[in-house]
């Protein structure tokens, strides 16, 4: 690659949401000579497969804070980043069964305390928000008027463009073959691209999704990350309203993301009790099932029919399978590693989109300050060593219906 530099102050591996967001934040803080290397194209990895739901709702206070801080960027992206990110404030609805009513109340209180515009809504109010939603069997609902969805690929592009405007070099179709360490393996000295070009650098941020696994394995660091297949179906609901909200249905364990332009809905499975994993080697070789299985499609259909029994004209338009990069506890890695200068920013486990802006800032803090400078947000829960130290992030009031910490 004739126009790649030979040295850089920071090399970021992966120009997805997190890589681009981090590049932008570092450049904003006057870091020069930032190079981002993307093996495919912007938005081609987990970024492009994200459903794009925006919400402040989490049972983890830390993640709620990150979501709240991030929402501002989605709302004002034109001013902040210089372009739109497809933010659609159709609202975010969250429903639980009777068993989890108290958990919902406590979590909503926590979210309110942290600045989320949210509140419990009555069954009648839900009927107005979504007339065909069958509220029977649900215990309680919460609603965030400013939640909804955004466009992950547009967001990725916006961050990349903003970063480039500040001098960041972003190279697509240029993967990293290996990370190079000093002879004793204790520090980063550079990276080698798939075109055999070497960039000397003291700092590498691995924002490469599942790719982090083999990149770090080759320098002796075990990053417990793998792929998980999420199977999604795309339907035409045939309902009365086009502007329905994004919906976290924790009664049937599914989530729904609407599309204002078409009225179609994306249905995702939120039940992680039967996970289908993808080996990182298979992921790298692109050897995994990219379409949804019949069983998964039927499961999603049953859940939808149970929740919206009156929508008899709902039609199946398409289905596909996405590959999320997941960690054992569903919480990302935003941390250093035993190798000096090697940082991780990956493992967003299918719920990273909404916290992208904050993650960029946190990662920049990590590189430049060694600690978080974001108010009320600590970096310690995202460290690699949390598993061996048996010190995992625990929500105060976790929902009983979900097995994974994406809510």
């Amino acid at each position, binding site marked *: 690659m004739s126009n790649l530099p030979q040295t850089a102050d920071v090399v970021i591996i992966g120009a997805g949401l997190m890589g681009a967001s981090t590049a932008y934040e570092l450049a904003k803080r006057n870091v020069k000579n930032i190079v981002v290397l993307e093996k495919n194209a912007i938005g081609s990895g987990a970024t492009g497969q994200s459903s794009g739901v925006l919400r402040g709702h989490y049972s983890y206070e830390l993640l709620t804070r990150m979501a709240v801080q991030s929402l501002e960027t989605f709302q004002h992206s034109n001013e902040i980043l210089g372009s739109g990110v497809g933010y659609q404030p159709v609202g975010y609805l969250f429903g639980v069964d009777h068993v989890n009513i108290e958990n919902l109340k406590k979590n909503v209180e926590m979210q309110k305390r942290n600045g989320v515009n949210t509140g419990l809504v009555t069954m009648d109010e839900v009927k107005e928000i979504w007339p065909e939603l069958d509220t029977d069997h649900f215990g309680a609902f919460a609603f965030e008027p400013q939640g909804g969805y955004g466009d992950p690929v547009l967001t990725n592009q916006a961050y990349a463009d903003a970063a480039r405007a500040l001098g960041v070099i972003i190279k697509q179709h240029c993967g990293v073959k290996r990370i190079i360490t000093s002879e004793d393996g204790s520090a980063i000295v550079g990276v080698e691209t798939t075109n055999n070009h070497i960039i000397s650098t003291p700092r590498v941020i691995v924002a490469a999704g599942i790719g982090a696994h083999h990149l770090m394995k080759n320098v002796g660091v075990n990053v417990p990350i793998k792929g998980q297949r999420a199977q999604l179906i795309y339907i035409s609901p045939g309902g009365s309203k086009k502007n329905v909200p994004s919906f976290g249905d924790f009664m049937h364990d599914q989530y729904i993301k609407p599309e204002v332009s078409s009225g179609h809905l994306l249905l995702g499975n939120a039940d992680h009790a039967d996970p289908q994993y993808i080996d990182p080697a298979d992921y790298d070789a692109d*050897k995994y099932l990219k*379409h949804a299985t019949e069983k998964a*499609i039927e499961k999603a*259909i*049953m859940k939808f*029919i149970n929740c919206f029994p009156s*929508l*008899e004209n709902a*039609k*199946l338009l398409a289905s596909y399978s996405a590959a999320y990069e997941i960690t054992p506890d569903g919480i990302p890695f935003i941390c250093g590693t035993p190798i000096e200068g090697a940082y991780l920013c990956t493992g967003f486990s299918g719920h990273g989109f909404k916290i992208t802006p904050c993650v960029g800032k946190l990662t920049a803090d990590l590189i430049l300050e060694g600690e978080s400078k974001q108010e009320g947000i600590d970096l310690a829960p995202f460290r690699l060593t949390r598993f061996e130290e048996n010190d995992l992030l625990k929500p105060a009031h976790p929902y009983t219906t979900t097995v994974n910490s994406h809510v």
Partner: protein
Amino acid sequence: MNMVVIMKQTFDTEEKITIENGQIVKDNVGSIMNPYDEYAVEEAVKLKEEHGGEVTVITVGPPEAESALRTALAMGADKAVLIENEDQPLDEYSIAKVLTAAINNREYDIILGGNMSVDNGASQVGPRIAEELEIPHVATITKLEIDGESVKAERDAEGDVEIIESTLPILVTAQQGLNEPRYPSLPGIMKAKKKSLERLAIEDLNVTEDDLQSKSKAVDHYLPPAKATGRILEGGLPAQVEELVHILHEETKIV
């Protein structure tokens, strides 16, 4: 009216094709109902809605072809028949013999199929079956009207439209534009699981060994040469535009 639809489950040609040892690799690739057969299923269901009767969908294929049959049932077909064939390579000649044998046992007024399959693209099986059954056919239709025994069809003949008249029983093959295939409704998909799906072995049908001896055979498969890297034009904008138009109009003759 009794409608029989001949259907094929094909490779999803929108997916990437890989070839190993001269054969197409089929693992991890999605399968879909041949898009042209979707038009046939839709037309058959519409005929049923208009004239009453029953729609039977028949396919020859591996066990996985069941999912394409279920989609047809979800669209409104009444019965499905899977003639299981996984390993025996059957060319158009043999497939037509097998399908003819399966159809011969049934009552039909009209047989519908797609005008070609997107994986093989030969457009043979429909007309071959019509000949075997000794009935007339109209291929690549974009419109169909049935009144009693009278058939009126519009046939796409390389852009021209031929208005054809004929009578039942008849075989027709569908061209793009015949109709807008309905997406299966979610309740329809669940109901389809309970509709009749008959599984037959080829041995159950009245076909001879000769019938199953294909008359043609593929000896190699390969991918087209990789596209050359693109070119970003240079110079002032007016000059670039002139060059581009020249390339498209004079050189590649695309427009």
